[in-house]
């Protein structure tokens, strides 16, 4: 059997850890990480990608489902989605998850991709004074102008904020007021809040396919936990600020923790049986991404840093990032026992961090706005990203990929921990240190003085050279030139070669001339002035001329060479040539 080596174009094992499974720059998907999830919607072992698409501008909001590289279905959403989760509502077979889409004060539940239920947040307490005033308006006891004045008075010192109806009324022009009042006065006042974030919490079992409660954070600074079947409120907790990002672990009936990043730049940790947060982490800048790694929290902050804390609020580390964070997600591969944090940056890169070490960098074609990592289709390690321009990127982690901490440059080098064999201190060393310690001020002064003198001398020489264009390099930006001169011969005839070079990157230099200045009693030159051709950048132009020495007294002098530019009075370059003594005359 003949054996020929396999010659394959793509055979070389690429060093990348990711396979490019799919890229659609015009997928028309505009979304954030909170609105993307992976779920086995049809119970066939093949995970689908579920996206709450915010669309562009008003309208075009959609619930989209992808299978593999293709769009499987689209449902129109009535309002902008703020969050989307998949969860198992009940024990019924087949055990296919439902989708919950939070938008405004509502949660829309979809089962089998069909609208199934709409949950509305409870209304908030109404300001009793506001209620009073509107009651008077209903009884036609006050006119719209008085109503306005009274409501404005309440607004300025209200503990309980006013309803949207009142706020809108206060913005109206006087002529619009009457009809507005007549339209609304019969209806009861309502005050609604909106959902800012949504997550899930297992009810009473830790299994992957256990029934989960919904956990929602609201603009009214509350966190609600909802029963998965009846959608009743099981628990309500209050926060000092508006929650924006949330991570939930544990089981509702046993023990759970909710880590919430809030708009005031703090992170709070809520636990079962505590109406108020138990721990608080104060960040130096606003949180833009939140990921939990085991028992620790990793936060991406607005000031281009990433910080890690324990759940008790102890800071573990800080890492500085090369660009602002756009979004974050957890890379979890339980089958390989590997966890890392994915951080999308505004410079079109996605970084993979294990603790504070950068272990992999993915360059993307556009800025990534949402990341989701998990099982997609039948592939466990799939990374799904959508971009600012509406693109969809799917990458698959190679089966053989290993993340090596040493891949990265960050972190202390290994050499740092090796102990050096430092020799013992000598007497000389000790004396020297003593002297330095006692005379520190005087030594410093002396040094500073000499340093200043040196600087002054250097600066003077430099200025002088510049003023008289004495340097063999031209300081002019438009005519960067270099020149050197060579004298050949024994005398009385000398050959003078000037090597001129245009050091510009690509611009030629024109209209230059050379002139010589010398003692006419001592030397004669056939031509003491001539023009130079156009100088092409980078080439060396040797220019030859001849000098005759007229004296036989064995004396020599300097010949000055000037490179001149037409229309300029000062020379571009000056060179002083020290002429050798003419020895040749003796032969005559």
């Amino acid at each position, binding site marked *: *059997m*003949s*054996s*020929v*080596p*396999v*010659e*394959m*174009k*793509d*055979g070389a*094992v690429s060093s990348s850890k990711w*396979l*490019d*499974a*799919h890229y659609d720059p015009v997928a028309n998907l505009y979304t954030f990480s909170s609105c993307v999830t992976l779920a086995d919607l049809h119970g066939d072992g093949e995970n689908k990608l579920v996206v709450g698409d915010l669309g562009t501008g008003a309208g075009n909001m959609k619930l989209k489902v992808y299978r*593999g*590289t*293709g769009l499987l279905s689209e449902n129109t959403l009535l309002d902008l989605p703020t969050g989307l989760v998949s969860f198992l509502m009940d024990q019924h077979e087949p055990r296919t998850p439902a989708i919950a889409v939070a938008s405004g004060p509502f949660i829309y539940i979809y089962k089998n991709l069909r609208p199934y239920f709409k949950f509305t947040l409870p209304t908030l307490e109404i300001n009793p004074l506001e209620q009073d005033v509107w009651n008077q308006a209903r009884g036609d006891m006050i006119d719209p102008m008085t109503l306005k004045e009274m409501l404005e008075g309440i607004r300025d010192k209200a503990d309980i904020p006013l309803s949207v109806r009142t706020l809108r009324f206060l913005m109206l022009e006087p002529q619009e007021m009457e009809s507005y009042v007549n339209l609304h006065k019969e209806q009861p006042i309502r005050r609604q809040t909106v959902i800012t974030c949504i997550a899930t919490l297992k009810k009473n079992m830790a299994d992957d396919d256990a029934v989960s409660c919904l956990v929602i954070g609201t603009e009214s600074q509350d966190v609600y936990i909802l029963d998965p079947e009846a959608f009743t409120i099981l628990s309500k907790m209050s926060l000092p600020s508006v929650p924006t990002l949330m991570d939930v672990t544990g089981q509702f009936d046993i023990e759970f923790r909710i880590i919430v990043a809030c708009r005031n730049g703090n992170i709070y940790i809520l636990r079962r049986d505590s109406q108020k947060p138990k721990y608080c982490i104060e960040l130096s800048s606003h949180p833009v991404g939140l990921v939990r790694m085991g028992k620790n929290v990793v936060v991406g902050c607005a000031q281009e840093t990433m910080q890690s804390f324990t759940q008790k609020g102890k800071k573990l580390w800080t890492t500085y990032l090369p660009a602002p964070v756009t979004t974050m997600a957890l890379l979890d591969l339980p*089958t390989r026992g590997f966890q890392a944090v994915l951080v999308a940056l505004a410079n079109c890169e996605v970084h993979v961090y294990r603790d504070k070490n950068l272990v992999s960098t993915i360059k993307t074609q556009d800025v990534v706005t949402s990341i989701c990592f998990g099982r*997609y*289709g*039948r*592939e*466990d*390690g799939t990374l799904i990203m959508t971009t600012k321009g509406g693109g969809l990127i*799917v990458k*698959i982690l*190679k*089966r*053989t990929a290993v993340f090596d901490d040493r891949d990265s440059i960050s972190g202390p080098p290994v050499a740092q921990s090796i102990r050096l064999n430092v020799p013992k201190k000598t007497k000389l060393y000790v004396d020297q240190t003593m002297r330095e310690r006692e005379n520190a001020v005087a030594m410093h002064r002396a040094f500073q003085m000499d340093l200043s003198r040196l600087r002054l001398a250097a600066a003077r020489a430099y200025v002088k050279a510049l003023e008289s264009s004495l340097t063999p390099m031209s300081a002019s930006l438009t005519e960067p030139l270099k020149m050197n001169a060579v004298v050949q011969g024994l005398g009385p005839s000398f050959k003078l070669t000037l090597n001129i070079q245009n050091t510009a990157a690509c611009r030629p230099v024109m209209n230059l001339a050379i002139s010589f200045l010398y003692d006419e009693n001592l030397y004669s030159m056939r031509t003491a002035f001539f023009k130079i051709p156009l100088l092409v950048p980078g080439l060396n132009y040797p220019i030859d001329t001849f000098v005759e020495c007229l004296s036989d007294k064995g004396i020599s002098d300097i010949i000055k060479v000037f490179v001149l530019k037409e229309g300029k009075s000062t020379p571009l370059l000056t060179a002083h040539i020290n002429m050798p003594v003419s020895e040749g005359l003796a032969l005559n």
Partner: protein
Amino acid sequence: MGLFDKLAGWLGLKKKEVNVICLGLDNSGKTTIINQLKPSNAQAQDIVPTIGFSIEKFKTSSLSFTVFDMSGQGRYRNLWEHYYKEGQAIIFVIDSSDKLRMVVAKEELDTLLNHPDIKHRRIPILFFANKMDLRDALSSVKVSQLLCLENIKDKPWHICASNAVQGEGLQEGVDWLQDQIRTMRT
């Protein structure tokens, strides 16, 4: 070797035995294909995802096959290479409707082709672009493009579109494989 077998061997009736390794990602249809190749009385009715691997033996008109049906699930794919040495032919099955994982199939194929036990052997490879009946299935030409099969220069290979559930396209592939094996010097 029994007397009867010896006799059959002398008379040229003895069938040549070959080991065939059946590879491909999970859910590509390997087990279904092998089940179809077996005589109808030995076929299984329900096919469940293969764990680890299973060994199937069956005979065709001229050859006696021993097929190693490898599990395609990611965590079992590192078992494949332990069987490369024994294999005299490879059947590589691709789910032609799974566009997303075509890169993964290519990656596994490249790893296979670069393995020391395979790299320098002129081992025949039969590709099945399976599930051709599905609406969004890619053609066998497209599949061979995506897998860069034209770069395999030193091994005989062949690709057929197939529908393992109906048994379509399988015979063509197996005929090709038998021809290759018969011409192989052992």
